[in-house]
C-alpha cells in the first residue's frame, strides 16, 4: 500500500467511525468500524460485561450479535449503493452456529451480493477471530425507502471520496 492510499484509507476509516458513533444504539453496544470494500463492510463488537445474557456462564446475549449483523448488512448496502440513502431492513435471518469464546471480540462481515432497483440482498457471517469457524450466518434483504432520482446513483458513484 502506498503512503497516499494509506492516508485515504485512514481518512475513510475516521469518517465511517465518526458516522458509526453518531448512531446511538451502535455507540451503546460499542460497535465499531473495521473496514470495507466494493460491496462489503466489516464491523466489530468488543466484549463488554453488559452484553451478557447469562453472567454465570459468561454467555453473550444474541441480541447484540443480531444488532452487529443488522448494522454490518445495512452498511454493505450503503457502500454498494455508494450513497447514504435511506433503506429499511425487510427481513434478517441469523443462524447462531456456536457461542463466541468468553470475552472475545465478535467481528461481523456482510456483503451485498445483489442489488435491484428496490431491493438489496445481503449475506454475512460473524466470527471471533477465524472466519472459517463462524459464530453466526446471516441472510437479509433491504428495501430502498426513497427511490433515487435517475442519474443520482451515477453522480454519487463519481463523487470524490
Amino acid at each position, binding site marked *: 500500500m502506498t503512503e497516499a492510499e494509506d492516508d485515504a484509507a485512514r481518512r475513510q476509516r475516521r469518517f465511517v467511525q465518526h458516522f458509526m458513533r453518531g448512531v446511538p*444504539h451502535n455507540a451503546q453496544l460499542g460497535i465499531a468500524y473495521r473496514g470495507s470494500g466494493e460491496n462489503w463492510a466489516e464491523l466489530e463488537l468488543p466484549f463488554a460485561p453488559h452484553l*451478557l*445474557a447469562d453472567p454465570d456462564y459468561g454467555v453473550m446475549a444474541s441480541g*447484540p450479535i443480531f444488532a452487529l449483523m443488522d448494522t454490518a448488512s445495512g452498511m454493505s448496502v450503503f457502500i454498494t449503493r455508494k450513497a447514504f440513502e435511506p433503506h*429499511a431492513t425487510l427481513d434478517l*435471518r441469523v*443462524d*447462531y452456529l456456536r457461542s463466541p469464546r468468553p470475552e472475545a471480540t465478535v467481528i461481523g462481515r456482510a456483503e451485498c451480493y445483489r442489488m435491484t432497483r428496490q431491493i438489496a440482498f445481503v449475506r454475512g457471517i460473524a466470527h471471533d477471530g477465524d472466519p472459517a469457524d463462524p459464530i453466526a450466518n446471516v441472510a437479509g434483504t433491504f428495501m430502498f425507502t426513497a427511490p433515487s432520482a435517475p442519474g443520482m446513483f451515477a453522480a454519487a458513484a463519481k463523487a470524490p471520496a
Partner: protein
Amino acid sequence: MTAAGFADALRSGTAGPLDMLPYGRLLALSFARDAGGVHLLMPYADALIGSPGRLHGGSIAGLMELAGMACVITAQPAGEPLPRIRPITITVDFMREGAARDTYAAGTVSKLGRRVVNVRTTAWQADRAKPIAAANINFLIDWP
C-alpha cells in the same frame, strides 16, 4: 444459558425488571403477566435509536429474542430443573418503523418439543394489533 434468576422471576412474580440479565439491564427491560401469557417492555431510551428517529432493528430483535425465551421458560413443566435454552435460528420481519416510544414484545409457542421449541414473537408499540416486527425463533433445549 437461561440465568436461573430469569426463570425464578418469571415463575414467582407477575411483573418485574429483567435486571438479573446484564443485557436486560442495558435495555431496561421488564416483564409482566397478561391474559395471554407474559410480555416484555422495552421503555424508550435515546440509546435505542438506529437511524434518526427510529429504533435500531437490533434492539427490537434483542427484545423479541428475550420475549421468546420468556415464553419457552414459562412453557416448561413446573417443578422440574430448567433445561439450557439457546436460540438457534431467528428470522425477523420488520413491518413498520419502530418509533421513538415504548415497545412491547410477546411470544407464543408454535410447537413445544422436548429438544426443540418453535416460537413466534411479535413486537408492538401503541397498538398490539399493528406489530412493528415479528420473528420466528427456534430454540434448542438441552436437559441436564
